[in-house]
């Protein structure tokens, strides 16, 4: 039996701008492929949304193995954005998701500003796509200098290009990197360029060295660190952005493992959350975390999730 959220008296619905969701728990890009595999374990139409793995214009093999190293309470990955390319993705993955009736947020990536625009253009009028997440912060690209999210101007250029190539009604979420001096500066820049919301955070750039070979463990040498180890960094980023931009929709992510972790994100200012690395440990995690969050709120006598969103900021108000 596929797991579905338990009935609850707590109102777990949430909003990201005009978009409404019955659950605040989404998959995280790169940790759920395009939903099909997880749908064996959970009914993916019952979670908030499926955020698909970042897709680029052309098919892409990704990096050589080893692509992964386990780290304390986390993992380092350097997949290198393996994927089928946007045409194949629309034909196979998006049509499946749309047929299922899953709410889909498509994550897109590009090697340059132009490619982002081209990929976005392909998504015009594709049924089932409710929003686009613009992955300007994948650390596993050819040139670390191309991580757009590390530079406010480059980040804005990408969002601009995507904005020009999609219908005005489709919300854009910019996915930000924590590897910056001031994440609020990047956040403000992409919002000004046309982002309707923010996905906070992508992985942190890291490295693991094999103590036998004395060489980096990943073929790409560096990789993105994820999992519970990075949660405090993610919470800090969500908190800072919420403080700087009180009304911007935020999808929070980074090491969410259970309902208590989710509540931290909501209190910091996230309107919804994405569950990533934890899905590798528990394929049912998105539904379980929804249930656990509802149970905790119920125990606290809180009737609606919306009551705790940004609660950590109330002392500053």
């Amino acid at each position, binding site marked *: 039996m596929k797991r579905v959220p338990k009935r609850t008296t707590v109102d777990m619905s949430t909003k990201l701008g005009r978009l409404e969701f019955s659950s605040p728990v989404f998959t995280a890009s790169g940790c759920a492929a395009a939903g099909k595999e997880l749908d*064996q*374990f959970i009914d993916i139409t019952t979670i908030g949304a499926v955020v698909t793995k970042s897709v680029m214009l052309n098919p892409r*093999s990704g990096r050589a*193995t*080893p692509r992964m190293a386990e780290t304390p309470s986390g993992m380092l990955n350097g997949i290198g954005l393996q994927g089928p390319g946007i045409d194949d993705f629309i034909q196979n993955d998006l049509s499946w998701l749309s047929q299922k009736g899953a709410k889909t947020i498509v994550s897109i990536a590009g090697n340059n500003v132009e490619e982002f625009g081209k990929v976005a253009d392909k998504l015009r009028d594709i049924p089932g796509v409710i929003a686009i997440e613009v992955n300007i912060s994948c650390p596993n690209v050819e040139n670390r200098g191309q991580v757009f999210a590390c530079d406010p101007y480059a980040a804005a250029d990408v969002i601009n290009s995507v904005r020009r190539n999609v219908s005005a009604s489709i919300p854009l979420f910019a996915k930000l990197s924590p590897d910056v001096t001031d994440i609020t500066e990047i956040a403000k820049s992409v919002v000004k360029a046309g982002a309707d919301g923010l996905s906070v955070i992508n992985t942190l750039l890291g490295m693991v060295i094999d103590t036998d070979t004395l060489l980096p463990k990943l073929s790409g040498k560096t990789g993105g660190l994820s999992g519970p180890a990075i949660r405090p960094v993610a919470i800090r980023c969500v908190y800072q952005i919420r403080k700087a931009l009180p009304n911007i929709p935020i999808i929070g992510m980074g090491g969410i493992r259970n309902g208590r972790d989710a509540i931290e994100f909501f209190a910091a200012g996230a309107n919804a959350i994405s569950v990533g690395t934890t899905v590798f440990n528990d394929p049912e995690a998105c539904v379980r975390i929804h249930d656990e969050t509802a149970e905790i709120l119920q125990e606290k006598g809180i009737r609606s999730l919306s009551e705790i969103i940004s609660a950590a900021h109330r002392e500053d108000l």
Partner: protein
Amino acid sequence: MPIVHKGTVVDVKKVGSYFVLTATAADIPKDFKPGNFVAVAIGDERSSLILRRAFSIYQVNDRGVYGGTVDIVVSPHGPGTDYIANLKRNDPINLVGPLGKPFSLPKDPVPCVLVGGGYGAAPLFTLAEALTARGCRVDFILGASTQEKLFGMLEARRISTTLSVTTDDGTSGVMGRVTDVLPDVIKKSGAAVVYACGPMQMLKAVSEVATLHGIVSQTSVEESMACGIGVCMTCVMPIIGEDGVTRMLRSCVDGPAFRGDKVRWDEVGTIPADTWGAPEIGGH
């Protein structure tokens, strides 16, 4: 359909250098086919080791005293496998399975050679039973570096027409590699298929011998996995498709059993230049 099962350990037995762990598994045995695996969580929901470890299913029992159970063979060689090997009866254990594409079975009752390297032999015993049930002759070859790293000798003898054993150091059977005896076993049995599970170098060598003899090989590969269910893209290998195009396929859902002649063994750990979507310059 695979399930997440919060089970308990029924038994852990030391067998040579290995541990055979039996765990309750609910309906996992009902859907099981030889070659499937389970992904085992390390520790509880607070554990700092969050990636599951994948194990070939060695045996299943779908209606024992404990309901469904599965057996896996563990070779402790790191914090995760050490944890599993040290589990005791009644300890909780969390399994996801059955996972992976099973071995393909021949349509006709043709002779088959099964080659196991060390505890890699684990999935071959249920395979041998399935083949025998189809009327296939089964010949076994077990190899390891040394005697105590051989796995399943008694069982292999019981369910096979012949059993050949090799060890690198000569402590049991023929001194040498499984591929030293494989050509002879293929000839004598008239084998049409070779099945193999074990270290990558062994699989490569077995696959080459099979190809040389003009017969098919099915190799069950071991790549490092993070999820086991097809979502993380960690366990990929360059595999030649039916259209002749090489793609980076996931060993967890497109495998772990691949046709040996379709795996680009020498290029595992690389992106061959003609791979679908390979980078033009530099890398990904």
